């Protein structure tokens, strides 16, 4: 008995062109970014700037959390503001009723805000995850509005439309924003670590298979309901933490701002622009768009022109980089790598690679590109893969 041979006669195994930059480049860029973020308030101590940085960190945590569920499972949730609001109310209510002093002690409530959101996500997820695609999206929006209505109407708990006021921390003045910024940065690093773990774990592979074909995944032993529900709860945890950080920073919680539908749109836009289903997509999206949005708001906020400027930017990015920034940049890098190898292969100084298949030796029923990963070119896959790959930071869709 012999193995099945799908390669053309005489063809050597073609060289694989990786779908993502080498590890050292990824680790170096991550390290540089972390170092920059760590010293950012020292470089730009202006409170107007650090205030934008805090909002950016909050959205960054939420975007990474949202991507853990929606990016990896393919279930687009437009109702995660539910958990943003739950996180805000958890911190505000605990601070008010448990007499938690404003300041560093309030930050200790962030994991609680996340846990309450995650626990709330379990029964909600159990219901909404029974449906797929458009119905799922509508249900998530409906749940968010139901929670907003509850916040308006459970006056004895939430003070209704009057909202809840929180005491401001003991630290004031020029350094008011920095503690919020660094707590947000730590939360973002934890969220990134969780996202990285999900992407590389056996559990996460099940989640990615659900994104591609849920029924097929079930048929390979993946308990899809449990897998999605866990991701939904993890996602809600980080969005809840983001909400829990936002409430003491602003100093108040209101139903319409806690359970805010525009929050969901903003998160989805960030992740789509950065690259949905990738590790770095939400990071790039949040770090690029939130400061820009805040800047536009400060510059043109009076006449709402900032929304137009923001919209134009969004359209431009989607037009030029439809797969999102991270996947598109990775694709460009790969194309450049392929072009370089092609040039090297053509060079007379370099001997022809053994992987080149002689013309006319195509097995029946297969396209030349399919016979060899090199797509007919020795040592190089086609410059544009028919189906983009979702692994790591490479193309997600």
């Amino acid at each position, binding site marked *: 008995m012999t193995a*099945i041979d*799908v390669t053309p006669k005489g063809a050597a195994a073609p060289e694989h062109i990786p779908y993502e930059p080498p590890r050292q480049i990824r680790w170096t860029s991550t390290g540089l970014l972390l170092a920059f973020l760590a010293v950012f308030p020292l470089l730009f101590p202006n409170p107007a700037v650090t205030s934008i940085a805090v909002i950016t960190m909050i959205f960054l945590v939420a975007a990474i959390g949202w991507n853990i569920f929606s990016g990896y499972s393919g279930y687009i949730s437009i109702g995660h503001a539910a958990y943003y609001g739950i996180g805000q109310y958890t911190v505000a209510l605990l601070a008010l009723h448990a007499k938690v002093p404003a300041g560093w002690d309030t930050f200790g409530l962030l994991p609680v805000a996340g846990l309450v959101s995650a626990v709330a996500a379990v029964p909600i997820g159990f219901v909404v995850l029974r449906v797929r695609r458009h119905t799922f999206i509508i249900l998530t929006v409906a749940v968010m509005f139901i929670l907003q209505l509850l916040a308006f109407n459970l006056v004895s708990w939430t003070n209704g439309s009057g909202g809840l006021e929180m005491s401001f921390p003991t630290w004031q003045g020029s350094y008011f924003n920095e503690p919020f910024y660094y707590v947000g940065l730590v939360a973002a690093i934890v969220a990134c670590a969780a996202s990285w773990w999900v992407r590389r774990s056996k559990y996460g*592979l*099940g989640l990615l298979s659900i994104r591609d074909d849920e029924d097929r995944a079930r048929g390979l032993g993946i308990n899809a309901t449990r897998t999605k529900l866990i991701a939904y709860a993890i996602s809600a945890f980080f969005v809840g933490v983001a909400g829990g950080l936002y409430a003491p920073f602003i100093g108040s919680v209101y139903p319409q701002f806690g359970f805010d539908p525009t929050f969901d749109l903003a998160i989805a836009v960030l992740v789509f622009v950065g690259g949905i289903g990738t590790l770095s997509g939400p990071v790039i999206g949040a770090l690029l768009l939130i400061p820009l949005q805040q800047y536009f708001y400060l510059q043109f906020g009076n006449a709402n022109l900032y929304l137009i400027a923001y919209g134009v930017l969004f359209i431009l990015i989607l037009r030029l980089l439809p797969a999102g920034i991270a996947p598109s940049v990775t694709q460009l890098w790969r194309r450049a790598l392929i072009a370089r190898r092609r040039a090297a292969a053509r060079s007379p100084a370099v001997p022809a690679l053994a992987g080149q298949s002689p013309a006319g030796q195509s097995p029946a029923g297969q396209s030349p590109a399919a016979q*060899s990963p090199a797509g007919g070119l020795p040592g190089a896959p086609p410059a544009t893969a028919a189906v983009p790959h979702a692994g790591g930071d490479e193309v997600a869709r």
Partner: protein
Amino acid sequence: MSILQVSDVRKSYGGIQALAGCTMTFEEGAINGLIGPNGSGKTTLFNVISGYETADAGRVTLRGKDITNARADQVFALGLGRTFQITRIFPRLTVLENLHVATQRRGFVGQLRSWKSGAERSRAMEVLDFVGLTPLAEEPAGGLSYGQQKLLEFAFITVAKPSVMLLDEPAGGVNPTLLRGLADRIRSLNNEGITFVIVEHDMEFVMGLCDRVLVMHQGCALTAGAPAEVRANPDVLEAYLGSDMREAG
């Protein structure tokens, strides 16, 4: 001895009765062929057995254990894997990742660990090597040709080491060279003790490979027997195999 038993299974889609009290037994350790004209209920039977669809009535047992209307993941965990007539792979995952989706791990800790870790990787590479897809291991599966996708689907069922494999038209769209290799692989796995149930329209492939052939017609089992018996059965020849086979016979 039977490993898989289907008793009086019924399934309707509106007014269409796809399975009308189907009863059949699949022998353990055999390569069972399941044939019949289009619309006779073969794929519906596969769907019901493998948990992709629920039966309206009847019973399905695997090694004596009732798996009627069990979920697809539960059926797979019990050792029954299947492929599809139109391949269903995970196009945005790499070929290697596709294989690892099917590897079974128990326990919370196992789920936390990297999918690349453990002996699973060497097992996956071994299977991948056998189906000749090793050079494509790191490529997105959606970029493979249809025939290669068939092999990949076959491979990721194989990697999980099921006791029963249901193959729905494995020869469809596969070139003759690959088909011979596939038949060899099926025989090899069968020698290791895996039971096969193969739905196939390529009669040469079925008659040459299967130990036993079962025939379906209008949602019911019509007859079963050795390939030669089925081939010689005038009713089968007339009603289900068509004139081509009669002439060939």
